[in-house]
């Protein structure tokens, strides 16, 4: 639509017309603020927690140290693009090995603005406890815990239910 709109405006005599072709999806996917009735809806990006990171050239020992009790370390490029992950057995490798040699390449990620109820449903069915959240560019936002999302959705449901009860009463 926006290319056609840009052309239309130019045909109507506007000179400085620009097409933000990546659009609203790009904006919300990057976690930028918005307006409107759904602007405050819960999203994976808002629940994502900061997570330990390392580079391809780091050692497994470094990744293990950074992962700590959290149990996971995300591998990123110098500008934060997600490349891989170390967790569980991959963190138990010889500490001298490089991260690049043992990492789980191309982990599953979700967008900042993914529809949370559907995502939680998929995570529950797959038995997944956490998931990497990224911006459209692939830049790491953080790690979202399924338990955080479940708690938030339960709270939203309770508030909605209380509101309905209040209206009915």
């Amino acid at each position, binding site marked *: *639509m*926006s*290319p*056609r*709109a*840009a*052309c*239309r*405006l*130019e*045909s*109507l*005599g*506007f*000179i*400085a*017309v*620009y*097409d*933000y*072709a*990546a*659009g*609203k*999806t*790009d*904006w*919300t996917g*990057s976690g*930028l*603020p*918005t*307006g*409107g*009735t*759904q*602007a405050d809806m819960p999203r994976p990006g808002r629940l994502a927690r900061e997570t330990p990171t390392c580079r391809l050239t780091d050692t497994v020992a470094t990744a293990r140290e950074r992962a700590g009790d959290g149990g996971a370390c995300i591998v990123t490029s110098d500008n934060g693009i997600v490349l891989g992950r170390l967790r569980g057995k991959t963190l138990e490798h010889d500490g001298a090995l490089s991260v690049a040699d043992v990492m789980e390449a191309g982990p599953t990620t979700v967008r900042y603005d993914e529809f949370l109820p559907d995502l939680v449903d998929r995570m529950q069915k797959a038995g997944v406890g956490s998931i990497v959240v990224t911006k459209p560019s692939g830049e790491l936002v953080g790690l979202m815990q399924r338990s955080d999302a479940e708690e938030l959705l339960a709270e939203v449901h309770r508030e909605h239910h209380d509101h309905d009860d209040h209206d009915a009463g």
Partner: protein
Amino acid sequence: MAEPEREPRNRKADVKVVIDQQEVRRLLDQENAQLVEVLPHQEYEQEHLPGAINMPLKELTPDAVATLDRARPVIVYCHDFL
């Protein structure tokens, strides 16, 4: 003989100037650009970029766009590339 002056690229009616997020923010911050969402009203009401006005594509008539300032850049957007 001097070469004829070339018309700036973004001044031709058949050339779209596609910009990225960074350029959107620059135009808004530094050039007082106008932001226009061209999706239907309901979608705009649900969520839109801060400061954006709504002019659905079907409603881009001469009368409707008269509210835009021709002296300022105009940025149009919809969902995404598709």
